């Protein structure tokens, strides 16, 4: 490969005094001096949360109030910092959602470990865990920063569902699906 020597253009005398450049710099900073400020004054002003924002992971109910999580523990498995800890449990046979069979007995996310990567949401086969728009967590102790199941559902609330997979399943069960 040929080497192409590129010579730098020699500086003019004026440039070598630095003075025009200094003057230009002073002009620039003075412009910014009077420009409107870019800083967001946080607690009073809040940023607009864009769609798809990855905030604190939460658990959600479906529109019929059923907890969506079936404690498959895939999120616990995929979680890179091992922040999730699930104790699986069985739904009682006389419960209205008995056909789902499984639900978490306890579900803990250690927010001191969570890295907000969103893999749990991505891996969830039931669309039960969502990183929503809460981005502030604080507490005075380590224990406070472990979100338990109740806290996770409080943060998560209800999200719309497009599948109603388990409702269809229940309907099929009640219909008996004769063929």
């Amino acid at each position, binding site marked *: 490969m040929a080497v192409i020597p590129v010579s730098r253009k020699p500086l003019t005398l004026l440039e070598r005094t630095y003075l025009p450049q200094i003057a230009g710099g002073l002009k620039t900073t003075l412009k910014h001096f009077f420009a409107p400020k870019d800083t967001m004054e946080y607690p009073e002003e809040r940023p607009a949360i864009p769609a798809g924002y990855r905030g604190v992971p939460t658990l959600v109910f479906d529109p019929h109030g059923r907890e969506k999580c079936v404690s498959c523990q895939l999120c616990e498995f995929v979680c890179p910092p091992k922040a999730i800890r699930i104790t699986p449990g069985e739904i009682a046979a006389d419960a209205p959602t008995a056909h789902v069979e499984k639900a978490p007995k306890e579900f803990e996310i250690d927010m001191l470990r969570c890295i907000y990567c969103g893999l749990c949401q991505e891996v969830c086969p039931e669309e039960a865990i969502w990183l929503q728009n809460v981005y502030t967590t604080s507490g005075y102790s380590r224990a406070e920063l472990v979100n338990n199941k109740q806290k996770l559902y409080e943060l998560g609330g209800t999200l719309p569902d497009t599948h109603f997979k388990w409702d269809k399943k229940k309907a099929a069960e009640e219909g008996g*699906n004769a063929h």
Partner: protein
Amino acid sequence: MIAPTKPDLVTVNIDGKEIAVPKGTNVIEAARLVGVDVPHYCYHPKLTIVGNCRMCLIEMGMPAVDPATKTPILDPATGKPKINWIPRPQIGCGTNVSPGLHIRTQSPLVKDCREGVMEFLLINHPLDCPICDQAGECKLQEQATGYGRGYSRFVEQKNVKPKRTQLGPRVTLDDERCILCSRCIRFTKEIVKDDVLGFIDRGSHSTLTCYPGKQLANNYSLNTVDICPVGALTSTDFRFKMRVWFLKQTNSIDTESSVGANTVVWSREGTIYRITPRQNDGVNDTWMADSGRERYKQVRAAGRLTTVKVNGNDSSPQIAVNAALHFCKDGGVAVVGSGRSSVEEQWVTKKLADALKATTHLVSRVGPGDGLLVSADRNPNVRGALVTGLIATLPTAKLASLAAAIDAGQIKTVVSVGEDLADAGLTAAQLAKVTIVYLGTHANATSAAAKVVLPTLTVFEKSGTLVNQQFRIQKFTKAVPAPAGATDDLVVLAKLATAAGATVPAAELAAVWKAIATEVPALSTITYANLPETGLLLDATPWAALPFVEGESLHFKPAK
């Protein structure tokens, strides 16, 4: 020793690779030998072949032979023998190899067949994977990924079947997931000879069920869960407890009897969740008894000893060892060893007994054998005590000789290695007459009466070896960490023996085995590290005359 007969070998060609396999091998096993996986559901090497899942379809053919000359016809293009391929696929499990057999497992036809079979199997299979306990070790999942078409064309409603049928006290059936492979039916019929399972109804209504009025209640019912390729049969105990991909597998030995079934202990973060059998064709094939699977519960059972006690007060191990030696210094000591201890522990126990000039005893446990995988001798390691020389004869019932010696006043101190003396046959009066030093895992009448209590470990918390009824020495490995406060039996025994004046190597398996190899002729070539996972048969002739209590069981015939 009888030299194994050389099997007749048959050369077959699988996907272009020639391999010589024993006559009578089926195509699935032959393919496994060349590293080719032929997917299957209903086929199980230890069960009869039914060929009803159709997943193992392969293409086969034979070299063409000129009818006139009886010589192979060569393909003019390649110069190799011409193969006459059978136009229809065959099942691999039901096809035994024959000389010159050619097999194709990757052809477009085979792939098509597999896709078709998978599609039919998945038509009515529920999308339960998130809640299914089989997920992660499910053949249907694996093969749908490996051989399925990847999407479903089935738009109709899936069949609905009962989800929580209790087949027996330990087995729950999810009928929707069943793919009708009939492995469980064949297992109960052929292995356990308890023919309670069967299919009823036809077509997609077919349902696995128990014979009316009967239950899948035999002591081997959980093996049906193990062999179920999908999540239809589930263990009621393990159901919804933990996903299998979190569990650490540790090889262990079933200690419920002298059969010594090979097992895998599944644990996560120090908690054991289940025990399953490990294949050892010389001992337990791929089975184990339900009773052995529950033994992990002793780890967290109530009454677990975790504090060293001297005269009923909390103490430290060193003080307790000194106190124990203090009780033993006047002589009149009896050491009650255990047929549940490992070979290493029994050897150190013998060293301790020799140093204390103590008589040695072993507790006898005899129950009915079931002829399969639970033998009459419920101690897993009586033969280990014989090999290491802890005892010379088989133990007698109810510790008769020890009881007599106590009554005669010859015994002042009894060192019990994990044995409940009251349960073994000594009366409360006899216990009260002697000073007891107790090494054990759980609280009982003996630990209550003992002056010195040293907490030790269960089989799941330590490593060691056991000698089973075949004189097969097998090793088990530590699966979970010991609870705080309890010490490895080997460490405690070594401390006692050293304090008593015996020369005992460091309480660490490699060192102990070095010493055992020099002192015990039968074990001279063995180290813990080089012991194969399937165990090693020892020469049983020195003890051939002893009246062992075991009857015939799987892979074992009594000597007489």
